[in-house]
């Protein structure tokens, strides 16, 4: 029984991984094409103010060993990438991969933390509303959550910065760099709180979980569970909770990453979003490529998790 359940899951996992590989390839091609076609050459940025003459730029190009054609450039990048080398940042000269790993941890903390916070708020409200209908309490909570979700994250971020950091002086301004201090984890909570509350994820999460759970609670098999005196949650858990939660988590990861770019700017959070912002301004192609791939991989990881849970839980999915 147990073994029979593992097979479809590993099959789904293998399929998802293959899709992920193809997708990352696609992402790298598209991002590369956009960068190549977009105005602005990293060399110009490097040489800006020093020498506008193209002769010098060509010489620089040769000295750096940059291939002439776009496919040559892509092939060179791709070849190195396969060996685990994402190149060096044009701006800082540091290798991209270790840099990404360093800032990626911050972004991961921020997004996963805010995802957890959103769930922590959304689940009780949604479950209560689905189980008891619209009571005064949960209607008020839902309304408050909707209003907060409608607030733009950058605005809310600045309000929080103003109130807690300027007015009360409760947190240091550069929360990420405060990591060495005592109770550093406390400072991490502010940006996590802002992204979790105001990224627009909260309202959709409440809505999705509430609709799904109340749909499931009205199913015939839940009536059967009640008729046989079994706990309802035991029967409603898989379809009414586990599946919708993983669905909404995987669907919301891209939005949280997008929100993270803004929140990292607002809070000086040394994460991938800020790095992406900086790299885009510098035309730092290797860094942009690396960030695009890591972000895409992160999003795919969410989908992968959702597929695996769905396949493990749903007997119909495993017989496809």
């Amino acid at each position: 029984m147990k073994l029979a359940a593992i097979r479809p899951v590993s099959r789904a996992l293998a399929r998802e991984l293959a899709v992920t590989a193809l997708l990352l390839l696609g992402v790298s091609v598209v991002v590369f094409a956009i960068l190549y076609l977009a105005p602005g050459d990293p060399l110009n940025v490097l040489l800006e103010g020093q020498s506008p003459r193209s002769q010098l730029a060509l010489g620089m190009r040769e000295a750096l060993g940059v291939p002439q054609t776009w496919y040559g450039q892509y092939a060179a990048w791709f070849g190195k990438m396969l060996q685990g080398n994402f190149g060096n940042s044009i701006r800082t000269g540091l290798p991209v991969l270790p840099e990404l790993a360093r800032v990626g941890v911050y972004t991961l903390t921020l997004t996963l933390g805010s995802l957890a916070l959103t769930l922590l708020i959304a689940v009780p409200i949604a479950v209560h509303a689905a189980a008891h209908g619209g009571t005064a309490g949960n209607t008020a909570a839902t309304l408050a959550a909707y209003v907060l979700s409608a607030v733009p994250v950058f605005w809310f971020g600045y309000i929080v910065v103003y109130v807690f950091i300027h007015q009360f002086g409760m947190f240091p301004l550069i929360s990420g760099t405060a990591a060495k201090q005592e109770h550093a984890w406390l400072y991490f909570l502010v940006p996590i709180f802002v992204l979790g509350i105001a990224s627009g994820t909260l309202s959709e999460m409440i809505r999705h979980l509430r609709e799904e759970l109340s749909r499931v609670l009205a199913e015939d098999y839940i009536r059967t569970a009640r008729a046989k005196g079994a706990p309802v949650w035991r029967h409603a858990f898989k379809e009414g909770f586990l599946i919708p939660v993983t669905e909404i988590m995987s669907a919301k990861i891209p939005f949280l990453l997008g929100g993270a770019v803004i929140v990292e700017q607002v809070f000086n959070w040394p994460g991938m979003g800020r790095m992406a912002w900086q790299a885009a301004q510098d035309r730092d192609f290797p860094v942009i490529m690396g960030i695009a791939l890591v972000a895409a991989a992160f999003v795919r990881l969410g989908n992968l998790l959702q597929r695996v849970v769905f396949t493990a839980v749903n007997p119909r999915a495993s017989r496809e």
Partner: protein
Amino acid sequence: MDAPLLAIENLRTYFYSRAKRAFIRSVDGVSLGVTRGETLGIVGESGSGKSVTALSAAGLVTAGPGVISGRIHLNSNGASRNLLDGLEKYARVTEQDGRVVAVEKDERGWRRRSETLMAGVRGKEIAMIFQNPRSALNPYSTIGKQLVETIRLHTNLKRESEARERAIHWLDRVRIDSPRLRFDNFPFGMSGGMCQRAMIAMALSAEPSLLIADEPTTGLDATIQSRIVDLLAELKAETGITTLLISHDISVIQRLSDRIAVMYGGTVVETGRAAEVLAPEAKVRHPYTAALLASIPSAETIRRKSYLQAIEGEVLDTIEVPRGCRFYGRCNRVTEAIRENCAGLEPPLGEVAPGHKVRCWLYPSPGKA
């Protein structure tokens, strides 16, 4: 004769229709008794209130206001309990000229109260099977697990392995082939008939005092329907379980019931021994029962290729209940002598013979009229 296993007294279950801004009187003053060991069949068209009666008895009514008055006595294990005990405290019914005009009900409070009353009753004393068995079983769990859950909840077999053996035993008793293999099947991989057998096995595995079968053959193929009816008849003979059978199919009721109750417009219009009520030569019969019987295809009608007799008119929507007999608008046996009564006064459920009651002005019970 000892007290009936289940005695429903003057049960009223109403629903509020927001669209029509009125109460739908699904069950409007129903009294029924199910004696130990018998099968009571409730028959009636869709909307007559028979399923709601059953759901009320099991405490499974979810829409509001739901059960608003009545008593449901369950007499089992030497104890008698009222499953609607204390309902008066939660539901205030305002009546005018014998009609309900307003209902105030603390639905959440009553639901909590009802859940405490039903704890240890639902599933254990009263087990239920439903229509559309494929959606009535949990699609995310194997039928084996679902049986084991019931067995561990309601019998003294608490160990997984024991419960498993018992579950397989029950799957075998409902004539499921190779029960050991079927144990690990999910409902979606099984036919409707097979799912209904599993449902029946699950209901009976708790060894309940009363089985409520709510339209057990609805949603199944015609050939499977008769197999399920056969199975219910066999299990009845083997276990002697008390059954409340609900069906719109009078031929199913005819095959399985000892006594029957015919429901129309939320009330019982005729009740009595099945053999007596449904006997072809019966002289006393409610016009609605007669109409239901006339709608069954018989060998005779098929040979003559004549059309089946449909009942004229629409089922009463039980929102605007007429002052007189609820069946008056569709009745074809109104005579001039009783027309005034039929139109203006609801007939009582009068006893026309020992144990045989009819709610019709055609048959005034002795002493009344």
